[in-house]
């Protein structure tokens, strides 16, 4: 793949975006001095096109487009190893959270990932049922991702062991959860929250 030259100027370094990341993650991006310890210990680094330290580096340069266009942030396992070992207390796992959140509305962000679909279904389940409904989550995921046969062999075994519940009782206080979701949506609409 041909890599585009990075033109750096005050216009191309999106400082506002970086500030949003810092506000959401509660951590400083500038503190990173690129020692690479995060990438050294990341269990998922081999799956990423930008290893974790480079994600921070690109952020320091305000080049979020390069980060969000790729899949690195979606291959973060949220294991917190990077945050734990960072010599500068840069909470990289939180930065990853912030980047994924900001990718919702970001132009050119990677959309195709299975991880995103799984996340979406997971949150929908909470909204609908109050709790996770594992059986439904797996079934819907397979349908929506077009992998009808994925983990097919596991199903009967799990059912036999009582690990997959066919039915799921709803919480009695479901209206409260719906209110939380809708209040957050309203806050975002009014610009009261990122």
């Amino acid at each position, binding site marked *: 793949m041909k890599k585009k030259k990075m033109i750096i100027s005050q216009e191309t370094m999106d400082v506002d975006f970086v500030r949003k990341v810092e*506000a*959401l993650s*509660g951590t400083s991006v500038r503190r990173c001095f690129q020692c690479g310890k995060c990438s050294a210990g990341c*269990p*998922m680094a081999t799956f990423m096109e930008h290893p974790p330290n480079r994600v921070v580096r690109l952020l320091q340069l305000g080049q979020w487009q390069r980060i969000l266009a790729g899949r690195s942030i979606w*291959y*973060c*396992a*949220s*294991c*917190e*190893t990077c*945050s*734990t070992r960072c010599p500068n207390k840069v*909470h990289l*796992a*939180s930065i*990853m*959270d*912030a980047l*994924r*959140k900001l990718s*919702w509305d970001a132009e050119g962000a990677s959309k195709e990932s*299975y*991880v*995103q*679909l*799984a*996340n979406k279904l*997971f*949150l929908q*389940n*909470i909204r609908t049922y*109050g*709790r*996770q409904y*594992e059986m439904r*989550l797996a079934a819907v*995921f397979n349908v929506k991702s077009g992998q009808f046969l*994925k983990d097919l*062999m*596991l199903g009967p*075994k*799990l059912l036999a*062991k*009582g*690990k*997959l519940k066919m039915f799921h009782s709803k*919480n009695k*206080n479901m209206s*409260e*959860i719906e*209110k*939380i*979701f809708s*209040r*957050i949506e309203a*806050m975002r609409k009014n610009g*009261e929250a*990122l």
Partner: protein
Amino acid sequence: MEKPLNYSYYPGCSLHASAGEYDLSTRELFKALNIQLTEIPDWFCCGATPAHNVDELLSLSLCAKNLELADQIEGDVAVACAACFSRLKTAQHVLGESAVKRKQVEKALDAPLKLDGNVKHLLEILAKDFGLERLAAAVNKPLTGLKVACYYGCLLTRPTDVPNLDCVEAPTIMEKVIEAVGATTVPWTHRMECCGANFTLSRPGVVIQLTGAVLDSAKAAGADCIMVGCPLCHGNLDIRQKEIEGVYNVQYGLPVFYLTQLVGLSVGLGSDKLGMDAMIVNPTPLLREKNLL
């Protein structure tokens, strides 16, 4: 007589489904130890990794809501799942540090926040509140000769200053608990490496690679079995073990126990009360060999 310990109990979604044996063994063990658990009525999902992954505000709000529900019941909050434990602790930490986020969550809940509940993982309750000496005294079938690889995974100790369960890089709490009931623990290299739980649904290939490395390490260290305190780790290590064996053409045959199953065994609970039959990798041969059944 000492006052019995009281907790509000947050089982989390997995314990009501794929990790039913964790729920069962927890309730039975705590009953046997005279520790009272009162399940939080109508608790919600904590949002787990998917929520904070893309929507921290939602994650914080769900956790704050659960802490509010837990507040109705006397006692600290007992949490079984490492992921739920991590989320609830993180919410307390983040909302304690950021006034902005606290305001937003208050608005989402439309209520003042009740965050002061002491959130404790079962390990903490057994090791610290109940105490290792009392635990040892409660044993009537010591797990002598059973070589256990204690698997912490990611979320029990990380990151620094948040769960504060034990040393973030070199914890010993699991080993202490299981050694107190007579088992032997093995030192091994991957007890804190990630199993890839986040990708169980979306990218099983990742799980096979990461969990495979964990199983490899436990086997190489000479363990008979693995002990976990997290239903997500359990899912990968137990349910996918066979598949991993197939992919790499190896034989592990490592039963994966919840800590409450093994401790329960040592205090004399029968395997029916510990949900041993729900385990995919059959533990019976191992337990027979060690005279524990």
